[in-house]
């Protein structure tokens, strides 16, 4: 599909520190969203379920690893598509939560995220270079 490749060997080049940073950011944002929800209610907590701290960490790590800005900008361009998929994820959960069991809602919403982001990539991603 338009030059997309899965290369497990690339994991060996990934610094452990990068993964630890991502784990830490994921943990902190998850806890922070929960605490916001406790203090200001679930709608406010929900807003922070899409807080971009992890993306900021990822972009910074890519720049450190690659020593140039172009791959960082390409990653951010891809993140626009992933973020649009997140709107679909949230809308799916909102619409289906009253109708289906929670586990099924989350599975369907995750599939919706992947489908929307994937289709957007096919439509807009490869056309503008790597």
């Amino acid at each position, binding site marked *: 599909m338009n030059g997309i490749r899965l290369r497990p060997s690339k994991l060996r080049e990934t610094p452990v520190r990068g993964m630890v940073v991502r784990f830490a950011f994921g943990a902190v944002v998850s806890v922070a969203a929960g605490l916001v929800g406790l203090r200001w209610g679930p709608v406010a907590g*929900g807003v922070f379920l899409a807080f971009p701290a992890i993306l900021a960490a990822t972009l910074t790590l890519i720049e450190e690893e690659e020593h140039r*800005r172009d791959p960082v900008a390409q*990653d*951010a361009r891809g993140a626009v598509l*992933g973020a649009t998929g997140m709107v679909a994820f949230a809308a799916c*959960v909102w619409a289906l939560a009253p109708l289906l069991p929670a586990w099924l809602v989350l599975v369907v919403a995750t599939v919706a995220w992947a489908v929307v982001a994937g289709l957007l990539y096919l439509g807009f991603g*490869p056309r503008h270079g790597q």
Partner: protein
Amino acid sequence: MSEVWWIVGRGLLGGLLVMAFAVIGEMLTPKRFAGIFAAAPAVALAGMTVTVVQKGEHQLDEDALGMIAGAVALVAYCAVAVPLVRRVGALAGSLMALAVWAIVAGAGWALIA
């Protein structure tokens, strides 16, 4: 489940899911496709799962309503981050773009609330 265990569980699951999506992104090329996984719903999956376990299913739609506002703001954040990281670098660019996320998310939250 006590509040402390709820917070610990939320943090652990959030960290693990973010790392899992990051691993998938690291293995993929081209970079633009891999970038999709930098904006994966990892934190949302963790938060919503723990919410359901702790409080039941009734709060899920309210979480999701707020998340719609946050996710629209994330789209704006990413769009602004692209030129910013080119111009001023990843750290400064992504920090400056946070202001855009905050404004759009705040407006969305005010609209919903």
